[in-house]
C-alpha cells in the first residue's frame, strides 16, 4: 500500500517536472511546479515527516507558488516561442546531466548505510521531536538562516524602493 502510494506520487512528481519543462505557457509551467511540490509533500508524509509535509504545502505550494502565479498574471506573460536551442547546450548539456546523475546516484548508493534508514509509513518523529532538534542542537544554523532571509527581504525592499 505504502509502496503503491510512493510510486504513484513519485511518478506524478516526475510527470509534473517534465510537464514544467515542456509546456510553452508560463502559467501551465507554474501549475506543474505546484503539482511537483504537492507530490513531494506526500512523499515526506510517507516517510513520517508530518510537519515537513504540511510546511511544504503551506510554504511552497501555498505561498511561493501563489506569488509566482500572481506575477505571471500581473505581467500577463504570453506563450513562449519554441527555439532550436544552441548547439553547445546540446553537446555539453546532455552528457553533463548524465554525468551529474551518475555521480549523484553512485554517491547515494555507496553512502546509503550511513544515511540511516527511514521506512515508508513509519511515523517516528513528531513535531516536538523536530522542534527539539531544530531549537537545541541546530539553533545557531537556524538563526543564521533566518538572518540570511532577513537580508534577502531588505535587499528586495532596497531594490523596490523608488528614488526620490
Amino acid at each position, binding site marked *: 500500500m505504502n509502496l503503491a502510494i510512493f510510486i504513484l506520487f513519485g511518478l506524478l512528481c516526475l510527470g509534473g517536472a517534465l510537464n514544467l519543462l515542456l509546456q510553452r505557457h508560463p*502559467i501551465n509551467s507554474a*501549475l506543474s511546479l*505546484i503539482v511537483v511540490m504537492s507530490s513531494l509533500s506526500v512523499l515526506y508524509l510517507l516517510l513520517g515527516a*508530518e*510537519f515537513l509535509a*504540511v*510546511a511544504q*504545502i*503551506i510554504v511552497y*505550494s*501555498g*505561498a511561493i507558488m*501563489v*506569488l509566482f*502565479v*500572481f506575477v505571471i*498574471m*500581473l505581467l500577463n506573460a504570453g506563450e513562449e516561442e519554441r527555439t532550436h536551442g544552441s548547439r553547445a547546450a546540446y553537446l555539453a548539456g546532455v552528457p553533463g546531466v548524465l554525468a551529474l546523475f551518475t555521480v549523484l546516484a553512485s554517491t547515494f548508493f555507496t553512502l546509503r548505510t550511513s544515511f540511516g534508514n527511514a521506512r515508508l509509513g513509519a511515523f517516528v518523529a*513528531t*513535531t*516536538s521531536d523536530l522542534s527539539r532538534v531544530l531549537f537545541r542542537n541546530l539553533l545557531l544554523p537556524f538563526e543564521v538562516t533566518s538572518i540570511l532571509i532577513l537580508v534577502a527581504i531588505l535587499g528586495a525592499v532596497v531594490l523596490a524602493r523608488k528614488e526620490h
Partner: protein
Amino acid sequence: MNILIFVLLSLLKVAVVTVIFLMAVAYTVLLERKLVGRIQNRWGPSRVGPFGLLQPLADGLKLFLKEDLMPTAVFRPLFILAPIIALSCSLISIGVIPFGENIHWHGVDMFQIADVNVGLLVILGVTSIGVYGIALSGWSSNNKYSLLGSLRSTAQMISYELALGLSVIGVVLRAGSLRLRDIVNIQNTHGILSWNIFGGIQIVAFFIYLTAAFAETNRTPFDLPEAESELTAGYHTEYSSMKFAMFFMAEYANMITVGCVATLLFLGGWSSPFGNLLPAFGGVVVQALLPVFWFVAKVFCFLFLYVWVRGTLPRFRYDQLMGFGWKFLLPIAIVNVMATSLVLAFHG
C-alpha cells in the same frame, strides 16, 4: 468482519458529515438573506415553504437548471478547474475538524473524520491552496474585471494569511500541540473561564483571527474582490450555472470552516460554557450529543456575527485594507506571540 464494520461505519460517517456540511452551507445562505433582510427592514425570502425554509432547495434547483455558458475567449482547462479547486479545498478542511468528545464505537471516532497530529496546519495549508481557485478563475476568464478582482483577492489573502497564522501561535503555545483535540482539551476544565479567549488571555489573538478570517473568506468589510460597484462581480463575473454555484458554496463553506476553527481555538470547542456546574443529565447518548450541540451553537453565533457585520459595515478602500493588514494586524500579532511566550516561559 470487524474491518468490514469499520470501513462501513467510516464511510457512513464521511457521508453524513458531508451531507450535513452541505446542508449547513445551503442554510447559511438562507440565514444571511433572512438576517440581512431584517437588518434592512424587510422580510427576506418568505414565499417558498414555511418561513422561506425551502428557499435553498429552490435556489439549488434553479442553479442546476441554468444554462452553463462558456465564453469564447476563456482559457478552458483552467476556467473549468478553478471552481473545482475552490470548492474542494473548502470542503476538505471539515475532514480534520473535531466536533464532539473523543468517543469510539467499533473503533471509529464518532465525532471527527480524521484525527491528524498536525490538524491545525492542515487547515492552514488547505486554505492556502484554495487561493488558486480565485486566482486562476480571474486569469482564465480573460476579462479585466475578473483579473482585477482575482489579483486583489490573491494579494489580500496572502497578506492576511500572515496575521492569521501568527494569531493562532499563542493558542498552539498554550496547548503545546498542533492537534485540534489537544487544543480543545486544555480549555474544558472550568467552563467559560478556561476558554483560550478568556482564561488563556488570547482575546487579542481572537480579534486578530476574526479580522484576518473575514479577509481570508472575502467577506464584508473586506469583500473588495467582488466589489460590485467597481468590478461588476469580480473574479466570478464570467461564471454561470453550477460553476458559479461552486464558488458561492465555497465561500459559505469557508465561512463555516473558519467559524469551526475559531470555536476550536478560542471558544473551547465542544466544551460546555458552564463546565462542571451543569449536572450530567440524560443517558449516554444525550451526554455524547450535548458537546455537539455546544459546538454547533458556537459556530452558529460566529455565522450570525458574519452576517451582522455584513449588514452594518461598509467596504474598506484597497490601500486601507493593505495598510491595516501589514501595519496594524501583523505587528500586533507578533507582539501577542512574544507576550504569550514570555508569560508561558516564566509561569508555564
